């Protein structure tokens, strides 16, 4: 019985590094988030409205690429090494994917941040969706590619651990946390194929001036092929913690191992063949394909609805063991003073709300009502911005001491921080949803337009703006408190009295899971077949209509292509020689 760092001191160092990369991104992202909330409500303005989109690109990329995925690789490394009870196969390999991801982040960040400096002819004001023909500096695409390859190698690392473990334990079931990591990574390999093709075959060559044009609908479709499963990639580490850590914090045990496996298999199968639900309002895609994507998406609700039951039942098990009684009174028996527990429980509660607005988003024709309005950021700040982010922060309150060997700096502040996030998000997200219903767009620097005004049926637009601004400010304060706590923890004195790094056995254990659930080859095959079924016709139709490189059109902003630059240089030199 010992803390993680006692068993795996070297892996703990990698996890610490990954966490800190994640936290730095959170710090930058939260700062930009604050600026956005105050700017788009016209309360405090530090930048020009034309710079708003540089800030928004940075917020999007730092939050949903860097913050989430760096934390993910840390948690997954913890989960695999803990549940297999063996260190990584090669530390050098582990550090190398970490470094590749870090370098990729830096490369991506340079052109984004250069957008603030007019004198540098470099920008990537393309938001995290980088829809062509908006074009970023090549370094942006190169950095993203390196980052993704880094995650591929990380996945390979975990698979290596599992293969090595399997050869020593041939007849045993895959331990549940490792199972979750492996299925998530298979999903990720399938999903990232979409942006790999989009970037390597089209956007990067195009930004380098090697090809003249791209097909905007094709690259957009490839983005969303990746763009939906990526949301599950953010969510799966949170689910992993809800299934493994949360029952333990509650004083109970996971309700059902078999159902947890079923849930992760369903995510592997269904996460990818649904991306077209982000394109319900796109021209060039037939209504039939949209309808198919809609039905697939609705079935993808199933694993999340099952998770709700299993996780709540596991918590209830804890509460009953702690003496809780009644239909609802048991809720009072839960350890609400524990920040790790409370943070995750509140995150789960917000996910229930975010799940609802997601059901609306998924509803094909009702999508006309809310598509690209503020409703959408309202929705995903509940999901990735809270269900994921708050679970990560809560998880860090338990994991950071495990990987540093140092006790948490302040538990009361940690508790306050999780509640503050919940309150801030309630304000911001609720107001965003309501503003979206009035037709107020997302990704927009101004609260109102010149020719007309948005009208609220209940309350006023100014009141909604105020709620967004107050909520955003509370969230920022909460993020600062979290980061401060992490920083002080890192400088704390090591302690001998940390809780031990064990994951309790589920109530209904793995012997009860049908063996076929562990047949990863089978699930991979089915997942690929489903993706081929869902995507081959739409992609063929898009290419057939517009061609691989599109029906023509320029890149924006119009920048000097390398050949043009070369020509200019030659001209200047000739001029000088004359």
């Amino acid at each position, binding site marked *: 019985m010992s803390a993680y760092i006692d068993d795996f001191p070297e892996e703990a160092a990698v996890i610490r590094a990954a966490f800190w990369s994640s936290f730095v991104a959170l710090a930058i992202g939260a700062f930009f988030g604050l600026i956005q909330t105050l700017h788009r409500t016209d309360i405090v303005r530090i930048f020009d409205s034309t710079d708003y989109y540089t800030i928004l690109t940075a917020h999007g990329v730092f939050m949903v690429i860097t913050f989430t995925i760096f934390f993910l690789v840390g948690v997954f490394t913890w989960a695999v090494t803990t549940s297999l009870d063996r260190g990584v196969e090669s530390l050098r390999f582990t550090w190398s994917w970490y470094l590749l991801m870090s370098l990729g982040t830096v490369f991506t960040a340079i052109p984004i941040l250069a957008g603030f400096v007019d004198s540098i002819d470099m920008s990537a004001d393309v938001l995290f969706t980088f829809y062509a023909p908006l074009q970023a500096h090549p370094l942006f695409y190169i950095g993203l590619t390196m980052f993704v390859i880094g995650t591929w190698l990380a996945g390979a690392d975990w698979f290596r651990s599992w293969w090595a473990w399997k050869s020593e334990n041939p007849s045993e079931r895959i331990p549940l946390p490792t199972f979750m990591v492996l299925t998530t990574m298979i999903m990720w390999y399938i999903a990232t194929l979409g942006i790999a093709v989009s970037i390597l075959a089209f956007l990067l060559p195009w930004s380098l001036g090697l090809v003249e044009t791209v097909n905007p609908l094709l690259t957009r479709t490839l983005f969303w092929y990746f763009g939906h499963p990526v949301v599950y990639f953010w969510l799966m580490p949170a689910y992993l913690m809800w299934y493994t850590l949360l029952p333990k914090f509650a*004083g109970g*045990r996971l*309700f059902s191992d078999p159902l947890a496996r079923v849930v992760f298999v369903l995510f592997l199968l269904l996460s990818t063949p649904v991306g077209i639900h982000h394109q319900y309002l796109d021209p060039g895609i037939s209504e039939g394909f949209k309808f198919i994507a809609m039905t697939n998406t609705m079935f993808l609700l199933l694993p999340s609805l099952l998770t*709700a*039951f299993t996780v*709540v*039942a596991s918590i*209830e*098990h804890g*509460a*009953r*063991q*702690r*003496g*809780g009684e*009644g*239909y*609802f009174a*048991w*809720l009072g028996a839960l*350890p609400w003073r524990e920040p790790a527990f409370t943070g995750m429980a509140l995150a789960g509660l917000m996910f*229930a709300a975010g799940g*609802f607005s997601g*059901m*609306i988003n998924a*509803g094909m*024709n*009702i999508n*006309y*009502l809310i598509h690209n309005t503020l409703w959408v950021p309202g929705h995903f700040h509940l999901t990735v911005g809270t269900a994921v982010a708050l679970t990560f922060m809560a998880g860090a309150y338990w994991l950071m001491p495990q990987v540093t060997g140092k006790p948490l700096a302040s538990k009361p502040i940690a508790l306050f921080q999780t509640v503050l996030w919940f309150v801030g998000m309630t304000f911001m997200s609720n107001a965003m949803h309501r503003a979206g*219903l009035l037709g107020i767009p997302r990704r927009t620097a101004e609260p109102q337009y010149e020719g007309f005004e948005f009208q609220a049926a209940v309350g006023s637009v100014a009141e909604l703006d105020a709620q967004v601004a107050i909520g955003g400010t509370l969230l920022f304060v909460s993020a600062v408190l979290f980061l401060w706590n992490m920083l002080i923890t890192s400088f704390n004195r090591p302690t001998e009295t940390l809780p031990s790094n064990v994951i*309790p*056995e589920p*109530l*209904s254990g793995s012997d009860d899971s049908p063996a076929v659930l562990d047949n990863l080859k089978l699930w991979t095959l089915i997942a690929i077949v489903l993706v081929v079924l869902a995507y081959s016709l739409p992609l063929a139709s898009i290419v057939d209509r517009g061609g691989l490189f599109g029906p023509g059109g320029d890149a924006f902003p119009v920048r000097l292509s390398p050949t043009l630059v070369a020509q200019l240089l030659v001209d200047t030199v000739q001029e000088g020689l004359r």
Partner: protein
Amino acid sequence: MASETSKRELGHDDFDPIGTLALIALYFLLLVFLWLFMYFVEFLGNEPTVVGLI
């Protein structure tokens, strides 16, 4: 595997998640109500709407 705070140990067979069932039933009702409200009041009441060529 009972932790320090636990008063009793409940195995698989002596635990019925009745509280979970109660909570999730409420969630179910809420979802049905909100869905109907959003679809029929907020969406279909938000005319004009895109309709087919008739």
